[in-house]
């Protein structure tokens, strides 16, 4: 036990004290922030493009007024199309909008010509179409002599609000489903990244010990299994440390950015997501607020500990196999691919199973994917936000614990033989035989 602790300590400390670890851990949140700032700059850059638009209102439906908005500036000069076109060519205007007189009040499809030398961007086009549409509507209302207020009451916005059957269950709003899916996918994605990155870390560590021949020295003091387990626990600890630092650093940096630089990261993200859909800033702000209310309403007190448990189990399950693969590879790096393919494949498959599973988080695929131990670490945490039935979580955990213990055992058996073999190509059949070697 004491020896195991010494190994864990060494594996942990040598990694945590590395410059590369300190740099990546501290810099990644900053890069992430930088990424968001750059992206938001790119998005706002387009909005800053001022469009001066001259309108020729042949129909006389505009009343010479059109509200400037989103960097669109309108004017109604008393000039003909020909001279305005010249002004567009001279860059005095960005374009000329010619509104023809509708042939009758019943016309529903209305074509407006826009003369310009620039490319009309999608957002500008949508914005213009909507504005002109509203003007035409007002014009029709006035012409038909309808009461505008009465007409407004005809329009109703419908949103579906899911309500739980059982009393006391958490109430959900209409966008909850989307948010939970997004959160679930993110958790699954983080899981895939962590498990595959750390798996190869473990493998490289084992290969290094073998090619260095330090393993020959080590085994005269400790059992090979202790050596392997120590490495797994040490690297697992490094991962948890990194995540803990990020859990503190990410919110701090984002909060700091908001306070000192006035960058509203949340809104930027919503803007990024809604750009081009014609949603106004106010709507975006509302949406951001709603999303954040929804996200904070998720049962994080269940999801975070569960995520960590699944992360640890998944890590031990896969990393032990990576350690076994590393022990069998030794000097020959080209061997690595053959031996690690059976490990990366299930991770990738699980990830691709998770995507459709999140569309129907209580469907058959999601249910069995989150119970089957090989894919459970990726799919169950993603499902947790959707409150899956307790028996499924329990079953999934029991199977996962069992499989993890079994895989760690198998890997230990392969490892203890593999680390002593040099310059020999290893087949899977051979590795299978190693399981039954006596100590």
């Amino acid at each position, binding site marked *: 036990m004491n*020896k195991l602790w*010494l*190994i864990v300590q*060494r594996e942990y400390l*040598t990694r945590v004290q590395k410059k590369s670890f300190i740099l990546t851990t501290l810099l990644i949140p900053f890069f992430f922030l930088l990424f968001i700032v750059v992206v938001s700059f790119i998005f706002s850059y387009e909005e800053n493009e001022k469009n001066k638009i001259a309108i020729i209102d042949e129909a006389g439906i505009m009343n010479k007024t059109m509200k400037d908005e989103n960097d669109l500036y309108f004017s109604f000069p008393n000039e003909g199309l020909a001279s305005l076109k010249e002004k567009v060519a001279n860059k005095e205007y960005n374009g000329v909008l010619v509104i023809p007189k509708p042939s009758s009040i019943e016309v529903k499809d209305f074509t407006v010509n826009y003369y310009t030398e620039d490319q009309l961007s999608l957002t500008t086009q949508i914005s213009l179409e909507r504005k002109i549409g509203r003007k035409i509507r007002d014009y029709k209302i006035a012409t038909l002599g309808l009461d505008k207020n009465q007409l407004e009451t005809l329009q109703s916005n419908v949103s579906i609000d899911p309500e739980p059957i059982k009393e006391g269950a958490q109430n959900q709003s209409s966008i909850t489903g989307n948010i939970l899916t997004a959160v679930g996918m993110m958790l699954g994605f983080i899981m895939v990244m962590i498990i595959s990155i750390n798996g190869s870390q473990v493998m490289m560590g084992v290969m290094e*010990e073998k090619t*260095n*021949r*330090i393993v*020959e*020295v*080590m*085994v*005269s*003091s*400790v059992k090979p299994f202790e050596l392997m387990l120590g490495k797994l626990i040490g690297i697992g600890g490094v991962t948890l440390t990194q995540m803990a630092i990020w859990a503190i650093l990410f919110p701090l940096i984002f909060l700091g950015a908001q306070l000192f630089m006035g960058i509203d990261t949340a809104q930027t993200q919503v803007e990024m997501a809604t750009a081009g859909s014609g949603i106004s800033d106010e709507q975006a702000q509302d949406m951001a607020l709603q999303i954040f209310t929804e996200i904070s309403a998720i049962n994080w007190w269940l999801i975070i500990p569960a995520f960590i448990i699944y992360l640890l189990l998944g890590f031990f399950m896969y990393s032990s196999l990576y350690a076994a693969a590393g022990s069998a590879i030794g000097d020959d790096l080209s061997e690595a691919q053959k031996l690690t393919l059976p490990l990366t494949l299930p991770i990738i498959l699980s990830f691709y199973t998770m995507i459709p599973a999140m569309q129907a988080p209580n469907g058959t695929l999601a249910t069995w994917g989150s119970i089957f131990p090989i894919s459970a670490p990726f799919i169950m945490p993603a499902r947790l936000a959707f409150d899956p039935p307790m028996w499924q979580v329990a079953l999934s955990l029991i199977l996962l614990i069992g499989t993890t213990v079994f895989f760690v055992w198998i890997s230990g058996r392969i490892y203890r033989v593999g680390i002593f073999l*040099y310059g020999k190509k290893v087949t899977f059949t051979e590795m299978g*035989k190693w399981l039954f*070697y*006596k*100590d």
Partner: protein
Amino acid sequence: MPILRLENVIKTYENHTAVNNVSFDVPKGSVFGLLGPNGAGKTSLIRIITTITGADSGAVYLDGEKLNSNHPSQIGYMPEERGLYKKMKVGDHLMYLAQLKGLSKKAAKEQIHYWFDKFSITDWWDKKVEELSKGMQQKIQFIATVIHRPKLLILDEPFSGLDPINTNLIKSEIDEMNQNGTSIIFSTHRMEQVEEVCEHIVLINQGQKILEGKVADVKNQFKDNLYKIKYTGSLPDNLQMTDAADDSYKIIGQGKKSITVQVTEESASNKLLNYLISKGVHIQSFNEILPTLNEIFIKQVGESEE
């Protein structure tokens, strides 16, 4: 009581027997040679003694006690294939290995400083292993092997890759440790080294013991009763060994001012000497020719494979 006793040790792998019913004793305080060609089963035997693997059957006793999990801390093992963590600092590395051998932090530190002083490398603590030359790394390797002051030291090809200066340094350290009571097992196929340092040997081939005993006894056992006689002046022309009382001499080699004579029985050497003197030969030296361990090794290994 021997420091190490092996009784009918057998270890089989999937398709071959690495150690086939081997028994021998390593006397306490001795320097013991474990010899054999490559692939003879030396490393398999050492791995059993160091508890890295277990024997399929048979028993191993360390200092009279059946081998158990406490024993690795009493054994120092320097494997033939050896290495260190390249990125670790020398001091930290030795601390780590020493603590794994059961030393307390304090004791480990004391020992490291003791050896650093001894090898005059006191400023190495903060150096990274990868900054050291190969010879320097081997010094560290040696310190790591002996830092816990083991009762039994097992050195597998200890001098392979060592320069002459380090070889001498390590040799004298081994000597000193042996004089202080440490028993040492030397595993090698370099016979000239064995003759230099070992008192006892065991020869293994194809997993089986083919020879065992004190170096002097083994040599005697395999000697051919040959004598090399150097003389000044000249031999009488008619020197006939058969002139002596019986047919017990035979000149089997003649060099410039020397002859090699084989006697049929050991006690005949005096008679031979007397005979030569009586014939007026001026004898400069009269030496028994003993076989080198190398010769015995090659002969025995060859025979065992026939």
